[in-house]
């Protein structure tokens, strides 16, 4: 079982800023290489009677692309993000209320779904919503030679034969959500899961560092 043909797999440089918008309760921007995403969270807030759930909060995810109207692809991604967030959020603490998460694409240079997940997690943290665990998104691509590329750019994604995104949780590094495209063997899938779990360590370290930096000065 070969792991990663490339000798030094790397994540592109990433960065994040929290609380950059004044209106949303929580906001963040997450940048991975050239891919950047802006996330805003409103909640817990009033919910429409048609959408209310009696014992938990209703989470709604909206993805906005830069150009044109949202299509089915955006709806599918909204589902992926929503299911991950619902698994992580303690929504039973806020019954009959609404949580709205809005994700805006600022630039797409590959690994977009992973960037959505990371921005969503940081925005939910910024809004102070109670969560049972944090989550990180990692994208892997398998190119024509069978090599596994982590955090691919748009060019690498185009030339890949399979593309997988996993949401990994922070407590036990388990897979919360997976979204794949293309064909791959079961062995390749296991390798990618293992690699993503390793990569998520870096991202969780980053979350920890950002929060530590933010609260290093008492107001």
């Amino acid at each position, binding site marked *: *079982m070969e*792991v*990663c043909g490339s000798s030094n*797999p*790397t*994540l*592109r*440089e*990433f*960065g*994040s*800023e*929290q*609380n*950059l*918008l*004044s*209106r*949303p309760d929580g*906001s963040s*921007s997450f*940048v991975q*290489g*050239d891919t*950047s995403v*802006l996330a*805003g969270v*409103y909640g817990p*807030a*009033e919910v429409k009677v048609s959408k209310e759930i009696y014992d938990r909060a209703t989470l709604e995810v*909206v993805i*906005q692309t*830069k*150009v*044109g109207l949202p299509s089915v692809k955006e709806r599918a991604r909204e589902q992926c993000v929503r299911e991950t967030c619902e698994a992580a959020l303690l929504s039973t603490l806020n019954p009959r209320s*609404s949580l*709205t998460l*809005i994700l*805006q694409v*600022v*630039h797409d*240079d590959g690994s977009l779904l992973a960037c959505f997940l990371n921005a969503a997690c940081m925005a939910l943290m910024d809004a102070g919503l109670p969560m049972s665990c944090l989550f990180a998104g990692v994208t892997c691509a398998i190119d024509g030679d069978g090599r596994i590329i982590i955090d691919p750019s748009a060019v690498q994604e185009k030339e890949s034969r399979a593309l997988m995104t996993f949401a990994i949780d922070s407590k036990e590094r388990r897979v919360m959500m997976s979204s794949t495209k293309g064909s791959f063997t*079961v*062995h390749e899938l*296991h*390798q990618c*899961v*293992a*690699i993503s*779990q*390793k*990569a998520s*360590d*870096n991202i969780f370290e*980053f979350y920890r*560092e*950002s929060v530590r*930096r*933010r609260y290093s*000065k008492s107001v």
Partner: protein
Amino acid sequence: MRDTPLSNCERDFILKAIEEKRRLDGRQTYDYRNIKISFGTDYGCCFVDLGKTRVMAQVSCELITPKENRPNDGIMFFNIELSPMASPAFETGRQSELMVKLNRQLERCLRNSKCIDTESLCVVSGEKVWQIRVDVHLLNHDGNLMDATSIAAITALCHFRRPDVGIQGEDVTVYSTEERDPIPLSIYHMPISVSFSFFQQGTYLLVDPCDREERVMDGLLMIAMNKHREICSIQSSGGIMLLKDQVLRCSKIASVKVSEITELINRALENDKKVRKAGGRCGFAESMPQERITALKTHVSPLEMTDVEEKANEIVLRAEAPPQTVPSPVLPGPGTGQVGEGLQSSWGLEEEEEEEEEEEEEEEEQQHKAEEEVTCVAEEKRGVKMQPVPISRWQ
């Protein structure tokens, strides 16, 4: 989601303060908030911060057939998206009054003023012209959306580069960015809108109202002007009655503001051009302020891959064995495939004799087929007993 309503005491406080010539954030009557313009990675993407109001504009282009009555003109398309991120009152999919108003104002400001040379967008007369599409996304609503939108739209149009086109007789080739440098749009002038808010039936005037001031204002006057002191569009809303000299005074103030803002836009475009020429990285990532406590950036980080192989092995060992594979499909005839046996009919019909006859016929047919087939896992199952084998475990 509904926006929090403005309380009566807040309203009274703001109005009283305006009467005493004071504003909540300490500005003077004619002062604009801090305007910050930054650009994205690709051409035509621009961010404008007007105080806390944040707006993003993206310009894109496409080749389409022109309108029939104007075969030589390109088409400009404007779209303002009120993102639900900007305010809890904005909802997706609903065309609110504000959205229609902003869209119409932007169209009048940019399209009717003919600031872009649409004839230069023509490629083949009557067949192919460029459609320039401007999408403006409102990211944070803290008042004065119209001004921020107009600044973002015109800056993005100035920043945009369209692909170069070569025409050789009948053939039209569109060159990609790598083949030939993209060319900028030809822009005659830059119309920028300035908003004036009126209070107490036109007695008091404020330039660039913030969100709270907008909520208590009586009416709004929007003047779109360019730096050559030409008025491109005027709109008065809210039903306030204005005197002639009030409007003239506002237009004088607007011309001063517009020249300042145009200066700012040109400086930002120059800076961006310099950075791109020097080959530096430009984009949202770079414009992220590093000294802020709420921002953090890492560098390209290598991953620890030493024990990934063991981990992957572990996963395989711990995983359950995959379920028994379905027998490979059989082709009983051209255009039909068969996998498994199928379930027995559970309708409980009373014509059982006919069923039995059919079953017998089926048996004969299948045995016949079984002999013909060479490699088939199902073969064994068929040969053993005529029991229906479920294709999948349903429960």
